[in-house]
């Protein structure tokens, strides 16, 4: 039962990575692409880590995976902000964003 749940979570996580990558390829500009990458990968990695933690069956590994997810989350959201800021400044800054 735990095995089925774990593999279900891992497959779902992989599905989110796939959807994020499809978004990266299909979305029209750098900002929309960043949405796809950051958000889908965050959920994908979370599900993957959860599934692997169940497979490992050890609280130490589970805690380590949780920490990895947290750090990847932090790195993802900060680099997303920095890339978006750089792209916006390249395109003329916030004046360009005003409606």
């Amino acid at each position, binding site marked *: 039962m735990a095995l089925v749940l774990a593999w279900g979570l891992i497959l779902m996580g992989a599905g989110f990575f796939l959807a994020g990558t499809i978004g990266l390829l299909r979305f029209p500009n750098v900002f929309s692409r960043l949405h796809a990458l950051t958000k889908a990968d965050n959920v994908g990695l979370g599900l993957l880590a959860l599934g692997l933690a169940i497979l490992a069956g050890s609280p130490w590994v589970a805690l380590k995976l949780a920490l990895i997810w947290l750090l990847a*989350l932090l790195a993802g959201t900060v680099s997303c902000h920095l890339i978006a800021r750089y792209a916006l400044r390249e395109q003329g800054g916030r004046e360009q964003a005003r409606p």
Partner: protein
Amino acid sequence: MSEPRRLTSRRLFWALTGAVLLWTLFTAGQGWDPLGLLVVTAATLAGAWWTPLWLRPVRWHALPGFGLYFVDRSVRGGVDVAWRALQPTMPLQPQWRVRPLRLPAGGPRSLLVSVISLMPGTLCAELVDDELVVHALAQGLDGELDELERRIARLYALE
């Protein structure tokens, strides 16, 4: 003006606690050889030295609620963007929102910027003294951002 003291016993204590917890986690509680002690000592000194001198206090009892809210919104964010990417028609209405910044600098603002990019449909692009420039994938997401600001204000006891 004299340089404020960074290696006070209080700061060292908290840095040591953090370093011991992290090292225990990394090594599954098995890492207490000379190398481990060296690593923990170095991490404690580095942590006490580089942690900002003043951190805005957090309401600890509000933290679990905020964590749940964050997990809920970021899962919705992932599902929302995956759905948009996989739809054949790809329903996107990319647009910019320029919002006044109400939260004070430091922890609250950093948290706001980090969380915005993981919430459904919003992404923080620019943060200047008084304004926040957000890229949105759809219309009508301002309510979500208001809610997030309210929750961060509650977490930091600012309201």
